[in-house]
């Protein structure tokens, strides 16, 4: 395992695009959080800064991080597509790697990136939490920190989907264009044409739903207002539109496996 990571690290540690994409992800994410947390909008007992207090901050920061997962997916397509375009996979096999090792190496790299994202989200959440929480209760600090795991599953799911696209098309440009076409118009159109009880299983929708918009109800201090909002929301909510968080994580994991296993069989059986 260490050998495969060392090989991948050797490939990308001096690759400008790799660091530009990661810096872009981290930079845009941190700037967005800083800007959002800087807003001083409040009406009555509701204050935007409540989103950045423990424990809601875990959900808020994970939700913001999910905006930029497309950058990680693009990075996954670029580095995988390049290995096909520049025939690096072919050379790696000639030099002695097995086909399964090629996939293992990339997945270890994606895992490292996913863990890096998780650490960044954790640091930003803790910093925001400690800055904006008025009265820190220890039990609250980590009570919603499970969003870190969700964040990891989400970024891995995006990257495994992107990897699948790159392996399928074996060409960076084509994989990028088709992935983005699927991301923006295609899946939303397909979902629009599909009943709610089915559309919630579409991969992008499901992966995106892992980090829901942080609840306004939770960000409200006034109990009466909270109750009123909860009541209104429960009337509006359609049970068919989204899966519960637990199910969403499980099905996302399923998609992640589908993309990984399909990529594995394509890598194993096709000419390089």
């Amino acid at each position, binding site marked *: 395992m260490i050998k495969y990571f060392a090989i991948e690290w050797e490939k990308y540690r001096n690759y400008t695009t790799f660091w530009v994409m990661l810096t872009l992800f981290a930079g845009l994410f941190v700037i967005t959080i800083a800007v959002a947390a800087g807003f001083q909008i409040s009406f009555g007992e509701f204050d935007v800064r409540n989103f950045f207090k423990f424990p809601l901050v875990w959900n808020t920061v994970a939700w913001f991080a999910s905006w930029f997962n497309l950058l990680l997916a693009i990075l996954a397509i670029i580095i995988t597509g390049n290995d096909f375009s520049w025939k*690096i996979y072919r050379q790696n096999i000639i030099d002695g790697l097995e086909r399964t090792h090629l996939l293992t190496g990339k997945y270890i790299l994606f895992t490292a990136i996913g863990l890096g994202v998780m650490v960044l989200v954790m640091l930003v959440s803790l910093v925001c939490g400690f800055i904006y929480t008025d009265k820190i209760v220890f039990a609250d600090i980590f009570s919603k920190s499970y969003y870190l795991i969700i964040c990891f599953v989400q970024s891995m799911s995006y990257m495994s989907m992107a990897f699948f696209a790159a392996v399928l098309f074996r060409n960076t440009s084509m994989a990028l264009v088709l992935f983005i076409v699927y991301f923006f118009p295609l899946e939303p159109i397909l979902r629009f044409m599909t009943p709610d009880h089915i559309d919630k299983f579409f991969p992008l929708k499901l992966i995106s739903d892992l980090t829901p918009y942080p609840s306004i109800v939770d960000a409200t201090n006034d109990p009466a207002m909270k109750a009123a909002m909860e009541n209104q929301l429960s009337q509006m909510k359609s049970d068919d539109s989204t899966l519960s968080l637990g199910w969403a994580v499980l099905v996302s994991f399923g998609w992640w496996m589908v993309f990984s296993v399909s990529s594995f069989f394509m890598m194993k059986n096709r000419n390089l």
Partner: protein
Amino acid sequence: MENILQINNIEKRYTVVKAVDNLSLEIGRGQVFGILGPNGSGKTTTLGIVLGIIKQNLGNFKWFDLPDNTTQNNRVGALLETPNFLPYLSAMENLTISFKIKGINLNKEEEINRVLKITNLYERRKSPFNTFSLGMKQRLAIANVLLGNPEVLVLDEPTNGLDPQGIAEIREIIIAEAKRGKTILLASHILDEVEKVCTHVAILKKGKLLTQGKVSELTQTFSGEILVVAAENNQALQELMVRSGMTNSVEKTDGGLKLTMKPNYGAADINKYAFQQNCVLSRLESQKRSLETQFLEILKQNK
């Protein structure tokens, strides 16, 4: 002789085209084995199959008498078609990746410097691959092949893109490696290159094996000797030679005739026949068949 590579009845189809058609070859230890053939004859596909990057439809191959269809690329140094390296990395960094993949049990820096010196790239070891000329890229690919001192070298058109000096340098490297007892599998369409370097050769056309054997045997005995003869009356001599029944072809050349003899007939037979027919030959010389002549003739016979 121990078999290094055995290819048994391999077939590779791309939709309706057969790139390799029921090909069987045996390469023994220490042989410098040339695979010759025109473009599209299946040379690269065959090498791609035994290196594990192309999947065959039928047949199997066996490296070092190990189980069927298992590649042994950590014991083989190979260059297939074009040099494939990461363009933004330097020669050293690219070779470091290969070094790690091959799991070479030597000092990394020393080994990389060794192969870079052999291929005259040491001075440019820190330059990115995308700044290299075609010849330098090819030499880096050769350096990669030599990395870790593998038992077998597989070289597909190794002199592609090189200038005459570069070709000579690569040829010297191949000959030096062969002298060290390495088994070398060399695919090329440059006949002169194969003839100068190889001990054995197989000729392919449209994926089929036309012939194989030792280069020396193939150039001398396969299809009869070539003689150049002349007499006072070459017109009469030509008619005589055609009538003799010993020749496959009789062609006029400057001041004489070029005879392609039938197998088992040689210069002595022609001389004796001409003498018996009261014709005195003023010139009789045997020409060594080049591999090129042989190659072209074999291809012509298998049109």
